Structures are given as C-alpha cells and as structure tokens.
C-alpha cells in the first residue's frame, strides 16, 4: 500500500503518469482533500503559478533560445538596454536647452512630433537674405560664363537650374541642378 503510493508519486514527478484532477488541484483552498499544512499550501500555490507560466509561454524550446539569445548579446540577462541609466546616478545631462523649460503658449499643440509634410501647416518663410544672396552670386557667375540669361533675382527657378545643370555637365561635376559646394568652388564663389 505504502509502496504503491510511493511508486505513483515518483512516476508523477517524472512526468510519466498523467496527473489526476484531484492531484493537480493544488490550490488547496476549498478542495475536498485533508486540510494541508499552510506552508505546504503556499509552496504549492507558487508551484502552480510556475507551471501556469510555462504553459502560457507555449514553447519551451523558444524559451531556451530566448534566454541564450539575450545573455549572448549582452551578458546581462535582464539588463534594460533601452532604459535611461538607473536613477540616482547622475544623469549624463544633454546639452543645455537654449530656452529652458517654459512655453508661454496657452494652447499646446495637438500632437508631439512634427506632423508629416503633407499635413504640416506651412511654415513661415525665413528671411531669405542669406540664401538669395548666394543664389544671386551664382546667377551672376553663371551669367558671366554665358550659362544663364535670366534675372538676377536670387531665386532658383527653372532657368537657374538648367544653367547649373549645363555648367556642372561641362565642368565634370556631379550633375544635381542645385548649388553644391563643388559648384561654388568652380564658380569661384568663396564659402565664408
């Protein structure tokens, strides 16, 4: 009798014999079995959770690849790689914000990151003094070399683009139709 019980529980522990519902019910509370030792019940409750966890995890093989994967990559199984450094250690402060922290607008924007271009409100044009001054110099230089006949208006329009393209082609530069550093060099316009 005693031997038989011993044999069965050994097989159960080895996972060979299926666990009967009565035995599997380790929650202790309210099951018809003899009142268990409270410590024992507690241990069993934790065991239950543990088994549940593995079942929910669904694939035991992935489990091992999971852990080896992580420790292989970082050597620290649970190190939160994404998180900012642990608190209490002085934070590597990013460059000081130019205007520290107070926004005077009464209504914040509706979203945080810049909206995509199509839906973005048109930004107010900056004073175009700097860019148009360089474009004018380029137009004059192209005019002097007979690549350009349009107005010296500081705007890169179709004619300026065509002139740039021809000039870049003739001078073996990368043909972009835009004002590149090499184009400025070739036109003798000094970068300040």
């Amino acid at each position, binding site marked *: 009798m005693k031997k038989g019980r011993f044999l069965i529980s050994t097989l159960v522990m080895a996972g060979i014999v299926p666990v009967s519902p009565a035995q599997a019910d380790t929650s202790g509370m309210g099951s018809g079995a003899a009142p268990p030792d409270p410590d024992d019940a507690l241990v069993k409750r934790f065991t239950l959770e543990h088994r549940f966890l593995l079942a929910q995890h669904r694939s035991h093989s992935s489990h091992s690849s999971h852990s080896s994967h992580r420790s292989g990559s970082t050597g620290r199984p649970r190190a939160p790689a*994404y998180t900012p450094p642990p608190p209490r250690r002085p934070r590597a402060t990013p460059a000081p914000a130019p205007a520290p922290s107070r926004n005077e607008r009464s209504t914040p924007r509706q979203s945080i990151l810049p909206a995509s271009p199509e839906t973005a409100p048109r*930004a107010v044009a900056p004073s175009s003094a700097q860019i148009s001054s360089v474009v004018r110099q380029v137009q004059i230089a192209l005019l002097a070399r007979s690549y350009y006949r349009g107005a010296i208006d500081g705007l890169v329009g179709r004619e300026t683009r065509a002139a740039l393209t021809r000039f870049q082609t003739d001078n073996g530069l990368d043909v972009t139709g835009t004002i590149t*550093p090499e184009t400025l060099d070739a036109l003798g316009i000094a970068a300040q």
Partner: protein
Amino acid sequence: MIALALPAQSDARAPFVTRLAATRSDRTTDSFCLSSSAEHSLWCGANGLMEIAHPRAALLGDIVLVDPAARRVERLIRATSRHNTLLVTERCDQLCVMCSQPPRKTHVDRFDLLTQACLLAPHGMTIGISGGEPTLYLPQLLALVETVRAARDDVQFHILSNGQHFTQAHVERLRSPVYRGVTWGIPLYAAQPYDHDSIVGKQGAYDRLEQSLVHLLRAGARIELRTVVTRDTLPGLLSLARAVTLNLAHIEQWSIMGLENIGFARQRWDALQVDLRTGFAPLAAAIDRAILHGVPVRLFNMPLCQVPPAYRHLAVASISDWKQRFAKACDGCSAKPDCSGFFEWHPDILVEEVTPL
C-alpha cells in the same frame, strides 16, 4: 522647449537627408555652414543650398530632413540628445483614450529618408521609432531596422507598437541577431480583455496583442510593456501585475507611466488624471507584486517628489529633453538632475505643486 521642425528654404528639388557638419569634407552626406547669424544659418551640401531659421551652433551634428516644398527642416536626429524619435506614420489602428499623438488618415512613406538618417546617427545611439502605429508598415519597418543594423550594429532601436500585427511568419525573421538591438515598447493597460479593448478603442485588441506577444517571445524579442496610469487603469493595476508576472515574466521591463496632457488626454484630463500623491497605493501594490516576481519595473513621467520615497529609485528621468519642463521651485531641489520633471504641456497649476527634496 526645443524646436524639432524649423522654417527653411532650399534650392533642392526633392526632400533629402543631410548631416550638418562642423567642417567641410568630401562626404556627400554632409552639409557645411557657409554663414550664420543669430537667427539664420546657410548650409551647402551635395543636395544644394539651404537656409535654416536657426543659428549654426545649435544645429551642429544634427541629422536633418530638408523638405523644400514644405519650406521646412525636421531635426530627425539631434546629435547632443539622447531622445530622438522618428515618426514613421501617423496612421493607427487603435484609438487610445489618452493618445498623445492622435492618428491621421494620411501617410507619407519616408522610410528611405529615415533609413538614411539612421545610417548617419552618432555612434552608439538609441533611436526611437513611433507613430501612429509603425507596424502598419511592418515590411518597410523591418527593412529599415535590418539595413541600419547590418551597417551600424552600434545603433539600437526602441520601437513603440500596439502589437497587433506580428504573426507566426515573423518569428524566424525576428530571431536574427540584428534584433538584439531592438526593444519593442508595447502598451498593455489591463489584464481583462474588455478593459484593455475599451481603453485602446478596438475590440479584440487584447486577444490579438496576446498572440503577438507569443510570437515575439518565441523570437526572443526584447519587450518593454508600457502602462499609462489613469483613473481607468489604476484600479486594475494589481490584477495586471499578476497577469504580467504569471504570463509575461520574460519581458525586459514593465514601464508604468504618468499621463501626458496632450492629444486626446488633453480633452479628458479631469476624467483621466490621477494625483499620485494621494492615489499611489494601487500602484505601489502592483509594483510590489512585480518586483516580488522579478519583473523589473520603472516609473516614467513621474516627478520624484510626487512618488513615495520607497519607490523613488524606480522613477527615471524619462521625459525627453525637448519637451521637459520644471517648476520654479525645482531650482532648489537636489533631486532635479534625476527627475523626469513635467511635460512642457502639463497644466500650469499642477506643475507648481512640487516639494523640493
């Protein structure tokens, strides 16, 4: 507040990405400064000229997306910041009640430009990817990650996703060593499907998320669960902690986050906001449970003085530099360098309710 989008002009024909370099070099990806005033700087590179409404010094090293037609420059990656997040789409298939970045229907595919930007990132940088829902464009997203990580294994990604689109077919792909540098930040608001679904505004979201989590765990993916504390989620936090410790013990971190007063949460602030100083108890119980079971917990967006002392070591200075703000009284606080502070758009009255430590 640091401006991430700046008015600009350029003679380029199409949008392009360039790094604003300190000196001229042969690198075709770089632009260098021709001249600068207090308000404007003029740059020149292989893609042409551009004038940005910002002085040179503040922009050096930044990787920017120049959009000539929109007449603006987006600072995609700021060299001096640890908080760089790329917005890959504004579409989303959930509608969370507290969404800080409400979705739009339009989508502009900029994956190629964003890939170029990531390839130029400073050494060792972690780049955030957000939306909208990035995994609505999963093929493009995975291609971006793989392209960048293959060339730059020092660059890491943190991708925010609602976890509605991972399937069995992704498991093998996500096992690639490339994804060791990728953490998936996934919101989970409740342990009960109905509660989670009503918060994210989509029926069946919880069940679909559960499937995705299985696929991600099988792929050995690094998962950060994120739970925003609102009046709706607070009562269920302990039950959620129980579910996380039971079923998701292999996550890398559980981030419990303060509410952000922007987007949808702004209209619903009074209904959603929890005063941490009086309402921390359910949160504490959830944290205790998680820690007891070895699940690492971090508190985001919570000023240190509003967190009970026993839990302060869990609170991180999580709010990105460009949207971080402090009260006047914070100047005298010894914990300020470690503190998240407040969001720029936090209600003024509440910001002043601080206790210098």
